[in-house]
């Protein structure tokens, strides 16, 4: 992903003080599974799990379900990837900053409902705009509760999860709002030359934007600094309140966008249209190699993980397996990706070193 020279191992605390410095493996040499990869290809250690699983599952599907690689099917998988990935992109930035947003499930439902209630089915563009703005303002509420109300993000957004979800149900009276607008339907199901759905292009745009934000702008360095050591970031004069409000707004806006795409895909808006979206996006972010303790993570990993979840769910359907296996598969992927990530780092699984034991807290 980057051609700039890798610095030598640096002390942990120093890693964020310099833009060129990336969180790197302490040991310079390749260890574990990573040593099998040719020297020219560089795979970040945290992401080795998601790469291995992606390759393994695609090879398996090539033999077990050849129709997986049909054009229509790939499009469906890309669409699923996009709906999960757009929200997960915002969640990636939040988790890198050491925050969480559990309320995305509710924003996914509420934003399109507000959009459709205010603008109706006449102007698709207006509905999209209002949905994104609603998502952004809900994110603003989250951000203000966290920064001005001094509530930890986990519980603050847990509270707003209930509040936003309830407001969505109240506005829609618990019913579904039907979508007839052509632009909205196209947004959810349309594609370019039968392969790439519009939603996937939006995902690429969103992730590109987040990547630039995180890696090429000052705010990205501040975000990573906040996630890596809050107190140090505060002492060094970073305006943490502004940062947290900004990333909650960004995450809310992206979630609102994902919500209206899902609404277009389903051709109706329901307050509970994306159950478990909060936990699924967090799972995608974690499988993509972003550390829950904050400070490090990448958008590429998140996209790969979203694709992995979409492929597995789609593959299970193609194999004619009972859809209930999806839940088991999600859990197994989560454990496997993280365990493989550890092996790829050359780490051993047992016994724990002191540092690993420390990390296992949360």
């Amino acid at each position: 992903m980057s051609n700039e020279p890798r610095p030598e191992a640096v002390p942990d605390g120093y890693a964020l003080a310099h833009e060129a410095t990336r969180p790197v493996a302490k040991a310079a040499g390749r260890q574990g599974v990573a040593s099998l990869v040719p020297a020219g290809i560089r795979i970040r250690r945290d992401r080795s799990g998601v790469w291995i699983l992606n390759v393994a599952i695609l090879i398996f599907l090539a033999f077990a379900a050849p129709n997986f690689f049909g054009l229509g099917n790939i499009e469906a998988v890309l669409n699923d990837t996009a709906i999960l990935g757009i929200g997960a992109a915002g969640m990636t930035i939040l988790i890198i900053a050491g925050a969480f947003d559990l309320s995305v499930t509710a924003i996914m439902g509420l934003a399109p409902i507000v959009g459709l209630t205010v603008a109706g089915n006449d102007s698709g563009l207006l509905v999209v705009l209002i949905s994104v703005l609603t998502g952004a303002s809900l994110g603003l509420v989250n951000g203000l509760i966290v920064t001005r109300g001094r509530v930890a993000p986990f519980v603050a957004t847990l509270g707003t999860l209930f509040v936003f979800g309830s407001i969505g149900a109240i506005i829609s009276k618990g019913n579904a709002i039907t979508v007839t607008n052509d632009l909205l339907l196209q947004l959810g199901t349309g594609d370019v030359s039968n392969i790439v759905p519009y939603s996937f292009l939006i995902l690429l745009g969103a992730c590109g934007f987040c990547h630039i934000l995180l890696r090429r702008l000052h705010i990205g360095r501040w975000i990573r600094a906040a996630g890596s050591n809050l107190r140090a970031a505060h002492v060094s004069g970073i305006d943490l309140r502004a940062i947290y409000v900004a990333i909650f707004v960004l995450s809310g806006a992206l979630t609102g966008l994902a919500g209206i795409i899902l609404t277009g895909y389903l051709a109706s808006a329901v307050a509970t249209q994306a159950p478990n979206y909060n936990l699924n996006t967090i799972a995608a972010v974690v499988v993509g190699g972003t550390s829950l303790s904050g400070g490090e993570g990448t958008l590429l990993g998140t996209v790969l993980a979203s694709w992995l979840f979409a492929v597995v769910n789609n593959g299970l359907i193609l194999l004619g397996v009972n859809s209930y296996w999806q839940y088991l598969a999600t859990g197994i992927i989560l454990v496997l990706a993280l365990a493989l990530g550890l092996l790829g780092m050359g780490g051993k699984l047992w016994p724990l070193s002191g540092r690993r034991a420390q990390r296992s807290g949360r």
Partner: protein
Amino acid sequence: MLGAESAASVIALIAVFVIFTLLNPRFLTSLNIKGIVVSASISTITGLGMTLIIAMRALDLSVGSIMGFSAIVAAQLLAAGLPLWLVIFLGLLIGAGLGLGNGVLIVVLGLPSFVATLATLSMILGGELLITHGETVTIHSPEFGRLVIGDVLGYIPAAALVALVVFGIVWIVFYRMSFGRHVAAIGGDIGAAIGAGINVSRITLGAFTLIGLCAALSGLMTGAELQNADSTIGAGSELTAIAVVVIGGTSLMGGRGNLFGTVCAAVLLASIKAGLNVANVSSLYEDLVFGSILIIALMVDGLRRGTRRKGMLVV
């Protein structure tokens, strides 16, 4: 034992009772109070386990799935004709086993508890659906139901006694045994805990087994009360349980746990839910009130602490 946070919970509880009684005197009927006590008892039991886990600076997201799984297995075993005591024993054993499984994932693979239990949340839910095929399993066992909603000593629902016993056990484990001190020590500063020679792996396994047991008991009680079991039992209750613990005054930062606060918060939320019902408010508004209480309670707490430590963001 009655700290500032607990006092606040008790005052809030009294205020809620007064307000709802003024709104509608039917709030104080014995049937309504009994409903509050049963539902509060069930959420208290999971909440007590969660208090220990949060005091250890960990989280368990799989409690909802464990609740559903144990209820479903119990329903299946009852239908197969096993005696009630054996079914309850096996249901609890399964909960403890699943909790231990969480602990093993955390200790052996070194996964953060959030991720490990997120994975098992999904896996156990998948297991539930594969067993039931998404259908409801009925429980035809009045004596099982009486163990939860039956009256003891005239007025008190049996569920309250069960919750009281669990509270007593968890209280002794947490405040009077070295295990509880070690749990709090790990939550306070895991590095210092390791340095002090605490066996972090053993304590982690123990704490997760305990919450698995608590969750299974809640699940069995829910199944017994409803006289049926399906995968919706416990769905989402992991987040509710965390909310109850946090409203009860236990910080997610770990190191301390307020068991009495958790009980108060569970009773508070159950009475608000019943009160809204009696006051004829649509159930769509329930979550609105619940979420607002969570946010307001924490904002008041945060601002109170903020006056002492100005300038530092609480994240």
